């Protein structure tokens, strides 16, 4: 019955708007099946978590009130009084963290399988921009509950922006809406979090998805070299999409589990005049950068250590984004290619610095 209504509706639309391009976009794509196929699902999980963020974010907007005197109170109201408010807020917080985690996994899996190479350069660039925007989402969203920890973490975070030469200081003031982190910063971060970032994010996400849909999944080297009859493919729609859905349901269940058993603490309300509480640390995904800056000496040659660190991460991020355009000679006699080695070092660096950040 439902199926009948569904196909009738599609026919109705098709008759008027010709859905052939959409159908082609969905149906032409085939997904290769091989021993590394599992990485194909990471992007899908990231997309799912973004949809969860969108949905829960909109629901939170119904009750959240930005402002020094209302932000904390409204979040408290959401988690204590609103029906299922605790669930929505905790799913939003957990999903944000998992989103960044899966985005990182997705990025490195693409990097190590060399899927960023021609013709998928722009897919990589847009993907990297999406990751940076996700981090910006995380940074701006962290302040919104206006609690002690978020207040001081934002203070430290924006201070780091301030060390960049020439543009650092004005950029810091622009971000904070003044010299200090105040209610003006909260208003700005709210605007950035719910309007500016979603608009830019959606744009890049649509581009990213269109590129993937248009070019199909990347085939790794070992799969390409197989004889044609041994290459196995499954249609993207509905086969791969169904598997995606299966994983999404599992991830969603994990999200609810985390929201229930490990609720995100609200803590105390931010107080600009209170001394900073102990244990001020950024979100885990900024930890490797934060820890590196902490470990750098105060001065390196004639430059400040912190400044050098910030510049290093800025330049390194930019080069990382342009990886598809950097030509490195393939050396068949090398067991590990240079770029793969660099990738392994980067992953090890991120993991070690993050762990150090929590244990030191």
């Amino acid at each position: 019955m439902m199926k009948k209504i569904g196909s009738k509706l599609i026919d109705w639309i098709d008759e008027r708007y010709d859905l052939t391009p959409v159908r082609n976009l969905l149906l032409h794509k085939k997904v290769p099946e091989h021993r590394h196929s599992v990485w194909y699902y990471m992007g899908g999980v990231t997309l799912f978590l973004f949809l969860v963020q969108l949905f829960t974010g909109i629901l939170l907007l119904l009750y959240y009130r930005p402002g020094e005197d209302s932000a904390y109170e409204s979040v408290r109201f959401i988690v204590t009084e609103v029906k299922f408010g605790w669930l929505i807020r905790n799913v939003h917080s957990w999903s944000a963290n998992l989103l960044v985690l899966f985005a990182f996994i997705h990025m490195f899996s693409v990097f190590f399988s060399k899927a960023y190479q021609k013709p998928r350069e722009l897919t990589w660039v847009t993907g990297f921009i999406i990751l940076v925007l996700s981090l910006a989402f995380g940074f701006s969203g962290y302040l919104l509950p206006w609690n002690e920890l978020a207040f001081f973490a934002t203070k430290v975070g924006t201070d780091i922006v301030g060390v960049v030469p020439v543009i650092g200081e004005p950029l810091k003031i622009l971000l904070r809406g003044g010299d200090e982190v105040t209610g003006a910063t909260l208003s700005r971060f709210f605007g950035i979090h719910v309007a500016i970032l979603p608009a830019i994010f959606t744009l890049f996400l649509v581009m990213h998805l269109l590129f993937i849909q248009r070019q199909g999944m990347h085939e790794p080297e070992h799969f390409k070299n197989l004889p044609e009859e041994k290459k196995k493919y499954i249609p993207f729609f509905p086969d791969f999409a169904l598997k995606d859905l299966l994983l999404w349901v599992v991830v969603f269940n994990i999200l609810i589990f985390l929201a229930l058993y490990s609720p995100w603490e609200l803590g105390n309300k931010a107080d600009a005049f209170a001394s900073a509480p102990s244990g001020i640390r950024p979100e885990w995904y900024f930890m490797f950068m934060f820890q590196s800056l902490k470990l750098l000496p105060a001065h390196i040659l004639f430059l400040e250590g912190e400044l050098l660190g910030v510049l290093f991460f800025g330049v390194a991020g930019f080069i990382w984004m342009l990886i598809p355009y950097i030509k490195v000679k393939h050396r068949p006699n090398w067991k590990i290619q240079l770029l793969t080695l660099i990738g392994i070092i980067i992953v090890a660096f991120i993991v070690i610095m993050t762990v150090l950040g929590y244990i030191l």
Partner: protein
Amino acid sequence: MGKRFYYFLLCTLTVSFLFGFAYPEKENKKADQNQKVDQCFACHKEIDNLPKDFSENDIHRHANLSCSSCHGGDPNSDDQDVAMSPSKGFVGVPKRKDIPKFCGKCHSNINIMRVYQPRITTDQVEQYYTSVHGKKLLAGDENVAECSSCHTAHSILSAKDPRSSVYALNVPNTCNKCHGNSSLMRTYNIPVNQLEEYSKSVHGIALLKNKDISAPACNDCHGNHGATPPGLKSISHVCGTCHVSNMDFFNATRMAKAFEEQDFHGCEQCHGNHGVQKPTDEMIGVGKESKCIDCHTEGDKGYKVSKNIHLSLIQLKNEYDAANAKYLEVRQKGMNDVEIGFQLQDAKQALIQSRTLIHTFDSVKVGAKVKEGIEFSNKASMLAQKEIDDYSTRRNGFAIATIAFLVFVIALYFKIKDKEKKAS
């Protein structure tokens, strides 16, 4: 080329507009005010002959007062003979016994002082001469403290300035400069362990360790300019300055009269003075740490009252602790703790009030307040239990949801397998 230029111009203008709009406004800084050259300061600085304790931050200097404002002379002349001439009112360094009056020239004159601080008092010198310090100075003892002993001579700062020697946090050490000097204090037969005792006391820990400037320093009990040891009768008034209810309750009892008759030291009798500790519930009752049994013995009325009061207090404390434990569990589970928190606040308030009511030595009054506190604690406990039960309901909900998801996942799995089978 022309078109490109206009595009460029348009982009630049748009970016500038957006940046200008988003960039926060800043207040203009006030221009520095011109200051007249003070020849006293200029010359003494040049010949490196400024007073040893001189500070650029001195409050008088900040108020644009010259050295001559206290020492006389002409600050406008760079000729030493003119500037430091007695005919220009130069008085030089005052003798120690004259210092209070020397400072009092201005500080006892409201017409001068109101220019700087409209609400300032001008009775410091008058009060000083009522103090032990002042009386001894008048009697010719030049070892006692005068204004500069506490305030310094040339680095005087407002008492509200944390760098000041008379800022609340610094007062105990300022007094201790003399009162911790055993050779000096021996002359007056005064002990020198006050700071040591005070540092370990509830007041000392609050002030010196926790930096709570609302906690009393030496001057809050002894007075500052009129510093004197409190007399026997005034002890409860001294403590009662802050502990108002305790004083009122105590003074209204028969016990206050009995204390007076026995020459007991009011509050100090049970709580001590410089080393006063945070009171415990064990100070009342009939246990080893009880203060009541110092005078009361088994069988007398006071003994019984003390025992009853102690039992009520312990009952409330236990109820409160139990409710608080549940409250913490609710918080840890991320459940609604707001109303429980309010109830607990009221329970805690009742507990504090019950403890204060001890000073009425009336078990009925204490009992009534304890009952109130127990009601609040029970309500908090009940609300907390409801939240803990709700949490269990959520867990059950999650279990049901998981089963539903699992069924869906299994169905999907079979659907996929079925498709794969058909395809092959």
